[in-house]
Every structure is written in structure tokens, then in C-alpha cells.
């Protein structure tokens, strides 16, 4: 998991950080809500107030003026805000001389030069009240060591601000990474993205690409689950169950629910050693479940080294269709996978 609790502690605030990584390496998570522990208490990372006010650093980079940057991120905010089943809203507070990462109580987006982060296009950090767990601030820095663009049709060799902002704003809102996407090993090492099924997939498709400007069903389910509009929980359902291998729970299996009616893909992981999983925000109706190990080259990007996920099993399609009820859960689904 790419969420890394920072050693930084300022007063009663805690800084957390996430990163969107470029085309090599591949952290991934299904549309998870970020949770964290403070003094033994569990919190879900989410905004308790809406609209979320954000500021934009008054910093230009070659090819992108500050106003162009602000325009592109505003569109990305609007894309998240326009999800009809989610209630979160954002508002532009103005330009600032402050920079992302400064714990000033202002949610700030902007460019910073970090050439040493040669795989990080952008990164989101959080400032959380150490007593209440309330999210106080979330900053997004865009690495100006890369070439950027806000061109409507994208620009070859330059990363699209709107696409990357859309991903990072998902983090800013409390979403983790999604694993709905495919990568392939490169002969020289590392991985290349073949396809993505979620804006929250951790690796961008490539410079010049603008297909990441549109949210996908996994993203919509995630933001709606985190900030449900009235009636969302009554009109959608969930699948839950347990993944086992040789009778024991499987930790870190990636489960994708496939909606037979529309073809939507929404995923999550089994996050306990008992193999328990849950996928919420699904349209009621029949779903096929596909279970796969995460890319074994990247497990340390998802999970702590101390808790490696089980990747030693075959990709499996559950032998039964699961009917997702309206406003409820499918009931415990038991899925056995076979070792490779």
C-alpha cells in the first residue's frame, strides 16, 4: 500500500502522504477508503465539511501558466463533484504564494520541482487532527521535473494536468488506489501499463494521454461510498465474502465485481488474513466475480513488507453469479482459489 504514515508530527496534527507513480513500479488498491489509526483509534480519511476549499500555488512551469493550471484542476474537481451519487463539493479559494506540503491549514495544489522523485508525477499529502482524526488539509504537488500540458487534446511528450489532477483529487477526497488495470513486465525491468479500469489506478497511461480525464465505475463507486448522496445506500448494494486457499483465508487477493448488465468493473481486496472482502456501491443485479493475485512484482507497493499479500494462486472466476440486492449485501460468498 502506498499510504505511508509520515514521521512528521506537528503539534496534534499528523501528515500522511500518497503518490501517483509513473510508468514503472505499480502500487495499486481498489477503491479503498483510507483508514488510519491514531492512539489506537480507527479513522476513515474523509472530509467532514463540504465544500472543500482549495487554493492554487502561484507558480508557472514551462508550457503551463498558473491560470491554465487552475483551469485544468478546476475541471478535474468538477468531474468528481458531478458524480450524482456522491455529495462532496469543492470550491476554489484563490491563488496563493504558499506551496503544497506547507502545513498552513490551506488545501493547496501546485507545481514543485523534485527531480529526485524520478517516478513521481504528483503526490497528495494530508494533515489530520491528531485528536479527532478530522482531515484539516490536503495538498497536491505536481512534479515540475516532468513536462506538463493543459492542451485540450493533450500534447505528445507532456503529461496532462487534468488527468493527473483527477487521480490526485481522488486521493485528496480520501480514495486509495484501484488495482483495476493491467501492466506488463518490461524486458529491461519495471512495468508498463497496458490498460486501466479506474482513474485511481496508480500508474498513468503515458504522457500525452488524456483518457484519464473521465471517471470510471470503480471511481464512481468509491467516491459515492465515501460521500454517499441521500438514497445511495438504499439504491445500491454490496458483495462480501471470503477468499480461501486450501481452507485458509487469502490476504491481498484482488476481487473484481463485473456487472452483467452494463459491463462495469468495481474492485477491492481481501484485507484480512481470514480472506474477508467487501465491495460496496454496486448496482443491484447479477455480477460475476473474478479473483486474481496482484502483480507479484509490485506487492511491496501495496502492502507492508511485514504483511505480504498472497500471490500464489490462480486467477479464478467464481463459479456462481452473485445477485447484488438493492440496499443490502449479497451475504457471505465463499470463494476457493487454487494454488498456482
Amino acid at each position: 500500500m502506498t499510504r505511508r504514515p509520515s514521521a512528521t508530527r506537528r503539534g496534534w496534527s499528523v501528515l500522511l502522504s500518497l503518490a501517483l507513480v509513473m510508468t514503472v513500479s505499480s502500487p495499486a488498491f481498489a477503491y479503498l477508503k483510507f483508514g488510519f489509526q491514531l492512539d489506537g483509534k480507527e479513522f476513515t480519511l474523509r472530509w467532514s465539511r463540504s465544500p472543500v476549499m482549495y487554493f492554487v500555488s502561484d507558480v508557472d512551469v514551462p508550457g503551463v501558466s498558473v491560470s491554465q493550471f487552475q483551469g485544468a484542476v478546476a475541471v478535474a474537481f468538477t468531474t468528481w463533484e458531478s458524480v450524482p451519487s456522491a455529495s462532496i463539493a469543492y470550491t476554489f479559494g484563490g491563488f496563493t504564494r504558499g506551496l503544497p506540503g506547507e502545513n498552513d491549514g490551506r488545501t493547496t495544489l501546485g507545481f514543485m520541482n523534485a527531480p529526485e522523485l524520478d517516478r513521481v508525477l504528483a503526490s497528495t499529502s494530508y494533515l489530520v487532527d491528531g485528536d479527532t482524526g478530522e482531515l484539516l488539509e490536503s495538498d497536491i504537488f505536481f512534479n515540475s521535473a516532468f513536462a506538463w500540458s493543459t492542451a485540450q487534446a493533450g500534447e505528445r511528450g507532456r503529461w496532462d494536468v487534468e488527468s493527473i489532477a483527477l487521480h490526485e483529487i481522488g486521493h485528496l477526497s480520501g480514495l486509495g488506489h484501484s488495482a483495476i488495470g493491467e501492466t506488463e513486465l518490461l524486458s529491461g525491468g519495471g512495468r508498463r501499463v497496458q490498460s486501466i479500469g479506474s482513474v485511481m489506478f496508480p500508474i498513468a497511461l503515458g504522457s500525452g494521454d488524456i483518457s484519464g480525464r473521465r471517471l470510471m465505475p470503480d471511481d464512481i463507486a468509491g467516491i459515492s461510498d465515501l460521500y454517499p448522496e441521500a438514497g445511495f445506500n438504499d439504491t445500491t448494494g454490496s458483495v462480501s465474502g471470503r477468499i480461501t486457499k486450501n481452507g485458509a483465508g487469502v490476504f491481498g487477493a484482488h476481487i473484481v465485481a463485473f456487472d452483467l448488465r452494463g459491463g462495469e468493473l468495481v474492485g477491492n481486496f481481501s484485507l484480512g488474513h481470514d480472506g474477508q472482502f467487501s465491495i460496496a456501491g454496486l448496482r443491484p443485479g447479477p455480477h460475476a466475480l473474478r479473483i486474481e493475485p496482484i502483480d507479484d512484482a509490485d506487492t511491496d507497493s501495496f502492502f507492508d513488507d511485514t504483511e505480504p499479500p498472497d500471490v500464489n494462486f490462480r486467477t479464478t472466476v467464481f463459479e456462481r453469479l452473485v445477485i447484488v440486492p438493492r440496499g443490502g449485501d449479497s451475504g457471505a460468498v465463499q470463494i476457493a482459489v487454487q494454488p498456482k
Partner: protein
Amino acid sequence: MRGRCIAIVVAALVWGAGQAQAQTPGAGRLELSAGARWVGPIAFGTTAATETTFGGGKRTLFESSSQLDASIGGSVGVGVQLTRGLRAEVSVAFSPTGLSTRISGDVEGVADLTVQAPVTQFLFEGGLQARPARWTRGRLSPFVTAGMGYLRQLNDGRTLVETGRACYFGGGLYYERVATHPRWLTATGVRADIRALVLRGGVAADDTWRGAPAITASVFARF
């Protein structure tokens, strides 16, 4: 499509009235029937699981092809004589069936397989039946029928109820014996229906009307 359903029913009514002849032997005011119904499979087509590639293209992870399986269940009905040769009918058909989906072409080499979910289906129907007396040959009496219906499908755990609409048209044959005893019973026999069912909604369907054949064999009594 609803308009088409109504048009068929109205056509049957007009046609039936025009064809009305002398009272059919063995006709009674009320008809009760009970029997078995077979409903053919209903295909829902293919849906692909896709992801987005560089430049906005699509990459298919796997494909699914779904159908509501053929089923055999029960059916009971009540008919009321409206005019000579024309009867109004209502019925309810029940059938345990299953939704089957074929998953194929998985990019990670998962073998093709069919996954299923049991579904219980209820179909409430109402329509008209025209049975002109001049068509009757001995104990055989053909008829045509058309109507509309309400579809209700439940998954196995009863956790999801989906509804839909239906319409049907078809025909059939009575093989009947005039009853002389007791006095209130006018006829008994068997009845076979062949219908074209057109359904919309339900557990697996989108808003597309889809057709399936249905064959019902039942025993009846007229009073």
C-alpha cells in the same frame, strides 16, 4: 412495444367478436385450468469487460454471454366467457429457472466457464382468447390468444426482486368432453397453448424487449 401489445389484444378482440358463432358445445361461463408450462431460453446478448488503453482505446479482459435458462413450471388460470367465442383470461405461471453466463476469452487464461444463479420467476398474465365455434371439429377446438403480463423475478436468496413487463400472443387447442354430470360442470378436457412471450426487465435484462417461446399443457374444467 406496449402499444404493439395493446394493438394485438384489440385485434384479437375485434376479430374474435366478428367470428363469434353459435355457442361452442361444452362452453361454460367460467373456466379453470392448471398445468405445466415450458418457457424457452431468453438470450441477453454479450457484454465485455473492458479497460481503457493509451489514447482511449478499449482492451477486452473477458466477455460474457448471458441467458435466462429454459424452465418448466406450473400455471393456473381462470377464464370468463365474455361473448360467444370470446373469453377473458388471467393466469399466473411459476417457474424455477436460472441465469447463466458464459465467461470466455479471459486475457489471463482463465478457462471458459459458465456461471449461474438460480432465479424464481412469476408471470401474471391477462388477455383475451377467441375460439370461434366454426373452428371446432369434434372434440378439438382451436383458439387464438393475446394479452399482457407482469413479470416478477426473485433470486435464490430472495434478496433481490426485479419486475418487468410481458406481452404474448399465440394459439392452442382444446380437447374437450362435454360433461353431463354434475349439472354445474359443462366440460372438461385438456388444453395446449403455444405462445410467443415477449419480456422486458427482470433480473438480468436491460430495457430491451426479448422473446421466448412458451408451451403450456393443462387440464381444464368449465362451469
